[in-house]
């Protein structure tokens, strides 16, 4: 059975239907890509899968447990992590604090009111490990707002990884990144694929085709095509938008 499965997800806001009928399944250890035009409902789909929105119909199963309608914090604690399309960090906090806050080891101390955080060797060690993974060593004590755009994206992913998840959802991780930063990100995801199951929404076709094991195309709130990158090369919609991307 797949690690994460969404069955017949339907989502409407008032009278406007955004997700018609979405079924997706993500196998453990794979990199799954999700593509589709702007406004297709990709982000809304992520919001449903991670608990931000409650789907109007359908069910979501993670590792054999039905998580439909559960609040995001419950789903997160089960090992589902995500990054956001719009940057979503703790802006007054320095880089390392953003990471520390997401560590399960830190979360376990939530009721401690006199112990100190930033001298805690266990927390620091774990946080440095994550920072190393996403290439932010050396900037750990900087205010997160002072980071470059690309590094903020990296931190965004770092926060998602710090939770030590089993599955990570990344919403357009390359958006706004230059060529060099995108190359870095490819390397990072190559590194991560052995440790996590990854699902990512992505605009950049080349990026996606290079990394993904499985790709789903979402359009008009439906999954219109699904398959390996090779299988999808021949898909009409994919070809058309790939041509557009090249031109």
């Amino acid at each position, binding site marked *: 059975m797949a690690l994460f499965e969404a069955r017949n997800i339907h989502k409407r806001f008032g009278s406007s239907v955004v997700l018609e009928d979405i079924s997706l399944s993500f196998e453990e250890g794979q990199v799954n890509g999700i593509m589709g035009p702007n406004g297709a409902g990709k982000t809304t789909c992520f919001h449903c899968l991670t608990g931000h929105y409650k789907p109007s119909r359908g069910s979501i199963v993670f590792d054999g447990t039905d998580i439909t309608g559960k609040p995001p*914090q419950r789903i997160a604690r089960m090992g589902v992590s995500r990054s956001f399309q719009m940057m979503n960090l703790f802006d007054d906090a320095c880089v390392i604090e953003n990471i520390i806050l997401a560590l399960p080891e830190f979360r376990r101390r939530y009721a401690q009111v006199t112990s100190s955080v930033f001298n805690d060797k266990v927390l620091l060690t774990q946080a440095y490990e994550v920072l190393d993974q996403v290439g932010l060593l050396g900037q750990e004590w900087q205010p997160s707002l002072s980071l470059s755009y690309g590094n903020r994206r990296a931190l965004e992913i770092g*926060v998602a990884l710090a939770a030590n998840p089993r599955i990570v959802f990344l919403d357009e991780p390359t958006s706004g990144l230059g060529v060099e930063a995108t190359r870095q990100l490819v390397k990072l995801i190559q590194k991560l694929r052995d440790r996590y199951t990854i699902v990512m929404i992505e605009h950049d076709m080349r990026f996606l085709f290079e990394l993904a094991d499985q790709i789903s195309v979402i359009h008009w709130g439906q999954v219109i095509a699904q398959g390996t990158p090779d299988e999808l090369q021949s898909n009409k919609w994919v070809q058309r938008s790939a041509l557009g991307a090249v031109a």
Partner: protein
Amino acid sequence: MVTLSDISRRSGQWITPQIAVFALVLLSLPFWIGPIGLYQYIGVEIAIWIIFALGFNLLFGYTGLHSFGHGAYLGVGAYAFGLFQLHVGVSLFGGLLAAILAAGVAGAVVASFVSHRRGIYFALMTIAFGQLFWFGAVKMHWITGGEDGLLNIPRPDLNLGVTSFDLSGNTALYYLIATLVIVITILTWRAVNSPFGRILQAIRQNEVRASFIGYEVWWFKWVVFTLSAMFAGLAGGLFSMAQESAYPDVMSLHQSGLIVMMVLVGGGLVNFWGPILGVVLYFIARDVLGAITETWLLWYGLMFVAMVMFKPEGLAGFLAELKRPSEPETWTKPAEEQ
């Protein structure tokens, strides 16, 4: 930019140089307050409001929850202390405990209604509940004495078993409260640097992300609201002890607004010491400006408006900028500290 969440280089310590200086100032106050033209009782008032303000800023500044009805818990504490002395028994610890618990229960009940809210809904609900308590205090005259309040509340002795201190003099009372202020300042300082405190600050910065990394946001809001109500209750209990009376005005909207103003003017949004500065500034303004003109509150209000418009970081932010040219008070790596 200075923010409340900057990591102090001394975030792991119990007693920082600032806390030591603050304690010295507090403990020596009775010796110099007279000579500079003020009087003992203002020290009592300042110390009481500092307790209120420190608790309030955990909620207001650190968690970013804008309560405009916290006067209510000050009042509940005041009544609880008074009722305890009048009907249960004359006891300092009993009274203060009753004040803390009563305000805590009131806060917990209100918190269960507001902790799922945010922004303007949160603020409006805190006002509504605040008014409810005030109304209750005025109407339930068989308990609260109505508009007249509770009068002739005795000031109990401080009974430590082996010895006991008479607190009927304002200087003795001041020392008791100043000691509490020092203990509470240290605990609050630890709390804002502890995991619990950092999570509160994370919630202020980004509630959505906080829940996506696994935190039950409403639970933290509930706890910090209740906690700040308990601080207010302690302050209220001490206030009714100092005044030897408790009356509805203590929990009026006016008091709720005052604590907000003090915290903002002092810089509670950007600095741990902000609430304390704000309280001191207010009482000095009241007595110094008040000696010059009856319309002092207008001038204080104008100062508040000017502060919000031109220096939203408050007095603490202003002071932080003055010393900016030297080294900013942010933290460096642990290795460099040793």
